[in-house]
């Protein structure tokens, strides 16, 4: 009940602020609808999955992606807000990458969409930099000791995405088949693909 009450309170305060901002000419409802629709329905982790699948099937694209993530993602039409300076980091047999934003919620929107709540939550932000192996275990990932972890705290203008290792037994798969295997968490680094 307390939660319902708080929800009604914030919903009313939000409605009131939108009304004020609209009367002032700062926003309009149709633009808000469109902006929300873009991020709710049109930009999400399927974008990143296509980038990954292209990198797995095209060595030249992979090279460009690791050299300049933003430019390579833009080749597929994924660019802009919260991805202006996208950096793609590659998992290997010796190295696993994990992305976090300890200070807020920085996340590469053009390729992954909006972050899940857990990514923005205090436990993940507090623990990913300090005990990444325990965090990964909670996600069901157990890395051998010889695999070293790089934790990328996206604290400034760079936005990071992980290029997972291509799963064994998928040689000869089409780009579409490969993209279907790639998960959001695989591109954050909290899952293997």
């Amino acid at each position, binding site marked *: 009940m307390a939660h319902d009450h708080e929800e009604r309170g914030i919903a009313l305060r939000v409605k009131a602020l939108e009304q004020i901002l609209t009367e002032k000419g700062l926003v309009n409802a149709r633009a808000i609808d469109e902006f929300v629709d873009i991020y709710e329905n049109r930009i999400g982790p399927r974008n990143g999955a296509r980038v990954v699948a292209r990198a797995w099937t095209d060595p030249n694209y992979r090279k460009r992606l690791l050299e300049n993530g933003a430019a390579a993602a833009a080749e597929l039409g994924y660019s802009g807000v919260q991805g202006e300076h996208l950096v793609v980091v590659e998992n290997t047999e010796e190295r696993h990458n994990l992305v976090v934003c300890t200070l807020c919620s920085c996340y590469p929107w*053009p390729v992954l969409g909006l972050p899940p709540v*857990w990514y923005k939550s205090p436990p993940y932000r507090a623990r990913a930099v*300090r005990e990444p192996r325990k965090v990964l275990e909670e996600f069901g990932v157990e890395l051998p000791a010889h695999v070293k972890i790089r934790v990328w705290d996206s604290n400034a203008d760079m936005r990071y995405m992980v290029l997972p290792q291509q799963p064994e037994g998928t040689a000869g798969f089409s780009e579409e088949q490969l993209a279907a295997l790639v998960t959001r968490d695989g591109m954050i680094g909290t899952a293997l693909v």
Partner: protein
Amino acid sequence: MDGIHDMGGMHGFGRIEREENEPAFHADWERRVFGYANLVTFVTGHGDDQLRREIERIPPAEYLKSSYYELWHKSLISVLRELGALSDDELAAGRAFHPLPATFDPANQAQPQALWKAVHAGASQSAPGATSFGHRFRVGDRARTKETMPYGHTRLPRYARGRVCTIVAERGPFIVADRNSEKRDTTPDTLYTVEFDAQDLWATEASTGDTVLIDAWDCYLDPLDEGTAR
């Protein structure tokens, strides 16, 4: 500032709670906040550096019990007040009573048909044309992050202050969040990506060979020969 938002390394938050098939938004009011918080900037011209500063000033207990988009909503109100674009009587009534500041042009208001293009164009804080900025380090150099404790906004997390690091990439000149947030000073500085040995941050709790990386402006760093070795 040394606020609750700076969580890297804190203990006591427990397990990471995940939701299967999580929706992008959990309530319609979250959609509205996400929309207006992003779109008012077309007219107001403020940015993430100002919003983050105001999120960080929310008292810790309130910060922790507020949901994500509540924090956005509250910080937007603070920034709009500061800009002279919102006042208490308006918030109390849910109606606009006062004109916008003269420097705002409502003709810049975001329109739906322009958004797909605007979203894909983005809004970089890089300063490629800058000619004067700090650039003391090269890839491979070692440095020490400053032992700073600023009251204002900074992007240097507490866990990474006063620690030895290695420069692993140069990202070019970027507006420095600290001074842009506090003073609207857009003088750029070279941004680097720097890498810490996890054991230099967390002692033996960390596994040998694991590392943590952050982005650090030139002004966040000192050459290693300044100050005492850790």
